[in-house]
């Protein structure tokens, strides 16, 4: 096989190996390529930053292990900001795998001395998809026991909270349906809560129309959103480190497309 046709038919395994290399290496030793902050992230940060210590925020954790790498970092970054500010967090989930991630977030801060039930609580999974979101939105009391089996009424953090309007903010961390569309349709529209979104990259186009219309006040988009948030917060962490890998991965893919096309043209010319 000559050079041109070899370029046209690069073995897919070479592509895979290169992709592994350019993404794994910068994760181990980051290059720290600069990253700009999108206006949406700043807006999101400002809304969260304006909260007062003692306020309570609701996290709706609507993702599963498979999509988590793109969404969970957003939740972790926002959680860090809130804990830092002394704002309380209550989590709920309309995906059955969601509560696991709530536990992951909270256990970390429990080790740091924060107290479950006071600074945060995990209300677990509520089955029923769209109708569940509607019912929970209108009456938080539909959940009687939290994920750890405590009666919800016994948690100090839940004092004075009847419906979702009693939360200072509702943030949906979402990788699909049910999620932000259902929150907008069933709760935001009728109760007028302040709703923010942390969306997986793939879901951004679906969420964008709600941000444009103001029904969702601000959105963090995927792993990159998390990285930007860490930067704005002044605590660059795991997500920022992954951005280099992200960029290099893109370049490799584009490079292969370009190489394939050049070879295709050279071949046609012959």
């Amino acid at each position, binding site marked *: 096989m000559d050079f041109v046709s070899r370029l046209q038919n690069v073995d897919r395994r070479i592509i895979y190996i290169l*992709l592994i290399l350019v993404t794994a290496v910068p994760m181990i030793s980051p290059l720290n390529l600069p990253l700009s902050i999108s206006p949406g992230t700043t807006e999101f940060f400002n809304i969260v930053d304006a909260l007062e210590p003692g306020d309570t925020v609701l996290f709706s954790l609507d993702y*599963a*292990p498979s999509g*988590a790498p793109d969404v969970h970092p957003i939740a972790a970054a926002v959680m860090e900001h809130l804990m830092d500010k002394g704002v309380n967090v209550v989590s709920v989930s309309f995906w059955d795998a969601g509560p696991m991630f709530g536990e992951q977030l909270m256990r970390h801060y429990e080790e740091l001395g924060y107290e479950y039930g006071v600074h945060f609580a995990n209300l677990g999974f509520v089955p029923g998809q769209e109708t569940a979101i509607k019912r929970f939105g209108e009456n938080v009391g539909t959940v009687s026991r939290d994920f750890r089996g405590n009666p919800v009424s016994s948690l100090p953090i839940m004092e004075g909270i009847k419906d979702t309007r009693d939360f200072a903010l509702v943030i949906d961390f979402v990788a699909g349906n049910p999620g932000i569309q259902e929150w907008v349709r069933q709760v935001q529209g009728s109760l007028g809560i302040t709703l923010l979104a942390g969306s997986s990259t793939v879901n951004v186009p679906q969420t964008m129309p709600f941000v444009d219309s103001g029904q969702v006040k601000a959105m963090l988009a995927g792993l990159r959103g998390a990285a930007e948030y860490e930067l704005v917060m002044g605590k660059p962490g795991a997500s920022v480190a992954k*951005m280099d890998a992200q*960029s290099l991965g893109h370049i490799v893919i584009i490079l292969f497309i370009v190489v394939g096309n050049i070879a295709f043209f050279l071949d046609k010319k012959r």
Partner: protein
Amino acid sequence: MRREVPLIITFVVGVIVLFANMFEGPLQAWSSELTGWLIIVSAFAVGLASVNLFRIHGTALMRMRPGWFNSLALIVALIVFAVIGTMARLGGDEKINNLNQNLYDSIIGPLGAAMFAMLAFYVASAAYRAFRMRSAEATVMLIAAILTMIGKAPIGELIWNKFPVIAEWLIDIPNTAGQRAIMIGAAIGAFATSLRILLGLERGHLGGAE
């Protein structure tokens, strides 16, 4: 009787569920009862599907077909997860609950995540394979894809600060227009297909004549 009853069931159930969205009154109650039953019927369907798995792999195992070892692994995994999961769910102690959670977190969770992550490789090889300027149409697709990729990558804006703007425009205008129209067409097609099912004009799934 054998033929009519299923058709009547489909029609009545479908009509109630459809119109309950638009009329207040008893229809809504019936519809929520009917859709509520679905959880139960579907749960039985899961059992049916598992029987199929069991029969296929049980046969492979008993006849010691090539790969019987894998069939054994499948059946063992099925039984272990079913038994421990059921024990944990129907009020197991702390130990069973932890085991159940660990099994999920370290087998189903990571294997699923790895399958999903495999998409990163396949997106790359599919792009390399498919995005060639074979025709005018393919060229348009290629250019749109590359502009979006560069515009979306963190490094794109370092190369030229207009790349993200172009990408945004492509997503907002031509992409939305295309998506909208495909959605409208698909909605009309979906409606017609469901209507034919509802009216019994489509019934391959119910078997043919007796």
